[in-house]
């Protein structure tokens, strides 16, 4: 077989990597290339250098080192039994690509993953080699995210953290049953064990740096994971519960959700129908509620219907508010910040602004209107100086008043 060109291999290996949702390049230490031999900087906030028509940002060069794989996970386009085209890069080629993209300001850095070749440890060594060349030989100071292979030698995983800003291990599926069925070669205890030891290493390195200024940094942007949504029977309630245990147990920075999407040459075990993209969006919203709005996992789960699914037509915050109307209306002039955060339509910024303004004067409905996108959405849930929703909060058809986009049907004339 003739050798494929760099472009052809890049296309194959980028195509194979696109099902990883994460592209974050934020949350690491601040550094720049002043006084160094190479290039690169990270300034806290990540930068999205382009957006693809799928609405996802392109921040990192996201590729696999190779898409050959000895595993046979049904949801994966690179599984052993798939007849997708195969290619591989050697570490130096990935380094060259990363640097030439970085110099032209196309990317923030590299997100490298790989299919498993020979053995898990061998594959991990190759991934680390790329990071090592970038950091040591080229003094590259941009962002590096390494996907870690749970089955690899723990020593290697520890080494990855020394070069990378972020390390991640995918839990793949929200339930153990799903994992056994769809990823027969992977084991849930092994994945969790590896996440546990990564957490340990991150915590230890942080601690060491408090005491010794020159202690090495270990994955300063922390670890993240990804779950595939809609490939198994897990409900949103299951997924939210699973995500919150992961956050607690492994101190993850992020749990990414990837709506299962049809892949070329799919395995016969998979569902053919994809879950609505909206489902992924609602799960991210619920994630936000837990991380920034002070909702407990069981409260987010209360927003789900009897079937354990979050409503698709309204966001989980509104769903929760409609279910617990007894907690509303909330007085914007008196209620504590946590209560204000529960009002549908009020974001964190708006709440901060409201709290700042009310130190000076009483808030009227018009003031709230200036600080939010849609006062109509907020109105039924608040009390202001000149506003009281009276019966509005308790109206049965409140949802349809707030979300008219859900196909307004003509009322019967004599109903």
């Amino acid at each position, binding site marked *: 077989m003739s050798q494929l060109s760099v472009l052809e291999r890049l296309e194959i290996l980028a195509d194979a990597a696109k099902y990883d949702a994460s592209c974050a390049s934020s949350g690491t230490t601040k550094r720049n290339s002043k006084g160094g031999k190479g290039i690169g*900087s990270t300034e806290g906030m990540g930068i999205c250098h382009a957006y693809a*028509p799928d*609405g996802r940002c392109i921040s990192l060069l996201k590729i696999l080192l190779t898409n050959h794989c000895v595993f046979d996970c049904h949801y994966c386009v690179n599984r052993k039994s798939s007849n997708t085209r195969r290619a591989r890069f050697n570490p130096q080629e990935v380094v060259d690509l990363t640097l030439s*993209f970085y110099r*032209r300001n196309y990317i923030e850095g590299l997100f490298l993953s790989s299919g498993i070749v020979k053995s898990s440890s061998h594959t991990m060594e190759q991934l680390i080699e790329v990071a090592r060349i970038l950091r040591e030989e080229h003094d590259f100071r941009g962002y590096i995210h390494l996907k870690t292979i749970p089955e690899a030698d723990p020593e290697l995983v520890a080494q990855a953290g020394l070069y990378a800003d972020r390390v991640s291990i995918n839990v793949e599926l929200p339930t153990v049953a799903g994992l056994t069925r769809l990823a027969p070669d992977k084991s849930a205890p092994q994945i969790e064990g590896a996440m546990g030891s990564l957490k340990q290493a991150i915590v230890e390195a942080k601690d060491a740096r408090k005491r010794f200024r020159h202690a090495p940094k270990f994955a300063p942007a922390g670890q993240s994971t990804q779950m595939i949504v809609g490939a198994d029977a897990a409900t949103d309630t299951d997924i939210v519960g699973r995500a919150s245990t992961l956050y607690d147990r492994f101190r993850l920075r992020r749990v990414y959700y990837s709506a299962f999407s*049809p892949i070329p*040459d799919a395995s016969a075990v*998979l569902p*053919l129908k994809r879950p609505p993209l909206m489902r992924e969006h609602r799960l991210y919203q619920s994630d936000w509620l837990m991380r920034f709005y002070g909702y407990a996992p069981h409260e987010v789960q209360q927003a789900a219907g009897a079937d354990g699914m979050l409503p698709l037509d309204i966001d989980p915050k509104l769903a929760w508010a409609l279910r617990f109307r007894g907690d509303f209306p909330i007085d914007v002039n008196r209620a504590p910040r946590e209560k204000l955060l529960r009002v549908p339509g009020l974001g964190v910024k708006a709440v901060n602004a409201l709290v700042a303004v009310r130190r000076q004067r009483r808030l009227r409905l018009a003031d709230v209107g200036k600080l939010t996108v849609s006062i109509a959405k907020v109105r039924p849930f608040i009390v202001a100086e000149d506003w009281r929703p009276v019966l509005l909060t308790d109206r049965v058809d409140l949802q349809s008043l707030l979300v008219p986009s859900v196909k307004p049907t003509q009322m019967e004339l004599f109903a």
Partner: protein
Amino acid sequence: MKPFRDMRLAEAFRIQLAAPDDFEDWRNAARRMIRADVPPDRITWESPADQSADLFAHGDRRLPPPPADAPQPRASRDFLQLAQSVILHSDSKRFSLLYRVLWRLQSCPRLMEDKADPDVRSMEDLARQVRRDIHKMRAFVRFRLVESVNSEQVEHYVAWFEPEHHILRANAGFFVRRFTTMRWSILTPRGCLHWDGETLQEGPPATRADAPSGDPVEALWRGYYASIFNPARLKIGAMLKEMPRKYWKNMPEAALIPELIAGAQAREARMVKAGEQDFGERPQSLDAIGDAILACRRCEIGCNGTRAVMGEGASTATLMIVGEQPGDTEEEQSRPFVGPAGRLLRTHLEEAGIPDRRTYVTNAVKHFKFLPRGKRRLHQNPTAKEIDVCRWWLDGERALVKPRLVLALGASAARSLLGKTVSVQKVRGEPHMLDDGSELWITTHPSYLLRLQDHGRAEEEIKFANDLRKVAARLSELFERGSPQD
């Protein structure tokens, strides 16, 4: 009341700033005017980039001397911070907005906290637009490598960018910190930046023609952009929100967007079709499955013109025996296990004491896969994909027959039941639990025995017989516990 005030009301002033983004200059002038007690509506602000919109604007260019005893103007830190961003905006009214807020701050020092105040909100809006423009410049600047005239020169990277606001100078630090060791230039219609690795220089406005028109690496970048895009999840709105069309003309990858969008639905449809397994409702009887597999064209074997072979045996059998696929003889007679391998199997079943009436025999794959060689049809192993697709039918048979034991002959049958490829020699001779609660036993395929010679054959045949004996023992064990059948 101050004696000057009434007289000054009639006066108007024009203030000419040195540069459109010079905060210090504005600040000095503003302090002076506040101290001289000049109200906001008496001042017209101008800068080289912002000629007064009011053609009839008039006013004294000489600024009034502030009274010696006038107090120092006060401004909160929030105001100063926000104002430094606001001043970079291209809106020519920004200077007077800032002055108006500064004027109001003198009597209302906590004004900035009132986020609902219209002036404060305008400042926040302008600052947000400036911050966004700064961020987008960091994201969307695309450097191109200039062919160097002589090889000793350091590589020179040049970019063309069109910022919306006066952010070029404010953004220089970012590019210096990131590309310290590179030689680069950023050209814009509002001015240029040049970095040689040590010092930063500013240049006059440039045009697009001054920048290089291409770079060979862009082909790789475009290839990457097109491949990382997932056509199964089109969200054009989300893309446009973050990457509005106005930026597209200076981004090499953006030219691909229309064709990617146009091709997306077709690509997704192709993917779904290629992976088509939408079998619909499960057939409710074995006969229905037998009819349906004849018409099944969901994999290549199904389309090779052979006749599908259905399983046969007791419809309530306790033991289901699964082979790989029909062979030459089986396909001709349209019955499973009637060829040489089938005869060998039957001999062994009899020896082990497994009666026909308790078994149902079938195959993992229902069609015969072969390679034509002259008049003969050479057996070919089905691929994992073909086995996985055909699993639907086997699952249907299992759901109807409900066997307590399943015996898989060979690796293909094992895959069809377990969903993964296993090594038969490692997993044979012991029970495996299937998800419907039945027990799976795995052994070699009899045709494997037929291919072996002499000693090897004798050895393997003993192992095969042992496996069958174990299955027979398990079978009678199940019956002693009292099975409804038999």
